[in-house]
């Protein structure tokens, strides 16, 4: 190939990359067909690989770490009995709540189907925070659905293929969640930064926010239902003459160890 043709080919490649960047940095609704095909193929192998790895891990834990198993079993039985009592109490409270809501003619805010999923791969780049889970459009998933665990918010679905879905974690720099401080109802936008710290933006200097305040979803962004735990305020700092405070938040979820997640499927979007 002549030098001129090589140069043209290289320039063409750069043009393709720039176009991809222009399209990719915009607000894409879902993955394109080639992306879906690639994710399907890649994730199928990753699912198999992770399944094998987890089997080996379970074998290791099951047969080689039996020390303290009896004590742990007893402790768990006691905890289970205590929790059963609490569940009964909560069930009563829930039923009373439902009755009151009916009386006041409120629509239930939790019209979600909960679908369990397993994380099968992590973002290969250390700079971005996303995972792929083993549920896709065949299971009713679509972009924009919230993903949570019992600890709190994980993120939201940003792309689906037939059997897998890509989840943007709340700690990713691209993530923004409408949040409120549970104690004072101060509102802000929680922006992802890293596994240990997120940033609560647009909190005015006069707003009441302090360390250890719990942050929850406001339910006003049309994606996450209200009241889901996001994290805890770790630092509040006034930055000189700026009108906003700098508020650091420690995520409630330990993102290093997420394995199983829950996808909240709502029949219709909130807005």
């Amino acid at each position: 190939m002549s030098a001129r043709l090589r140069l043209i080919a290289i320039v063409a490649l750069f043009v393709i990359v720039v176009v991809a960047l222009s399209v990719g940095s915009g607000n894409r609704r879902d993955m394109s067909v080639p992306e879906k095909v690639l994710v399907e193929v890649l994730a199928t192998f990753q699912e198999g690989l992770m399944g094998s790895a987890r089997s080996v891990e379970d074998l290791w834990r099951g047969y080689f770490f039996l020390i303290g198993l009896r004590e742990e079993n007893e402790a768990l039985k006691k905890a289970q009995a205590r929790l059963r009592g609490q569940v009964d109490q909560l069930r009563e409270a829930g039923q009373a709540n439902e009755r009151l809501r009916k009386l006041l003619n409120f629509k239930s805010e939790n019209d979600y189907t909960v679908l369990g999923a397993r994380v099968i791969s992590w973002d290969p780049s250390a700079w971005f925070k996303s995972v792929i889970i083993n549920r896709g459009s065949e299971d009713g998933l679509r972009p924009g659905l919230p993903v949570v665990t019992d600890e709190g918010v994980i993120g939201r679905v940003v792309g689906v293929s037939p059997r897998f879905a890509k989840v943007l974690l709340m700690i990713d720099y691209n993530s923004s969640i409408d949040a409120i401080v549970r104690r004072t109802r101060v509102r802000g936008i929680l922006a992802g930064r890293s596994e240990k710290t997120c940033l609560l933006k647009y909190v005015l200097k006069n707003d009441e926010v302090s360390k250890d305040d719990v942050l929850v979803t406001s339910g006003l962004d049309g994606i996450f239902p209200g009241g889901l735990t996001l994290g805890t305020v770790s630092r509040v700092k006034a930055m000189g003459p700026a009108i906003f405070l700098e508020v650091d938040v420690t995520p409630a979820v330990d993102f290093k160890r997420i394995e199983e997640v829950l996808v909240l499927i709502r029949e219709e979007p909130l807005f």
Partner: protein
Amino acid sequence: MKEDVRIQPLSIKGWLYCLLTGFIVLLFQGSIEGWLIPDGFGPDLSLILVLYLGLFAPLHSGALIVTALGFFKDVSGGGAFGVHPGIFLVIFLLEGQLRQKIDPAAPWYQMLYIGAFTLVSGSMVWLSFYLLGGPSPAPPETFSNPMFAYLLSCLLTAGVGPIFFWLFDLIVPWFGLRTEAES
């Protein structure tokens, strides 16, 4: 690394083996590596493969292959689509300018080479997002010190790089990049 390897045009089989190797590397990097090293500062194996191809692959086919690898990486993860193809392509072309002048045969030399390009790659990620006008992604955070964690990641990539160069050396004949003695 074989000192007498010459740049040969890639056959169809060579293309397939290069892309398959990249696919397997990403497969491993996204699953097992992410599971074993959850902090996110594991070695960037896809970058190691790009650096290896930069030393061996012909210009036009190598550029296409590393661009494709970049797209694979973007599709399997988050971030703006198109960042890694651009970075891999620039790194490949930079190596093309250097490969006539250097020959990182010794492992310690390979570590320096890979470590330097890992730093370049990280800087380019920051630069690309600065140019795109968005917030900058945070580097992997461990020990509450992002820069320390990022340097640790570079060291780890540089440390395991020679091992993967050796592995890729073993399958160079499959790529179709034969030595003068074998061709």
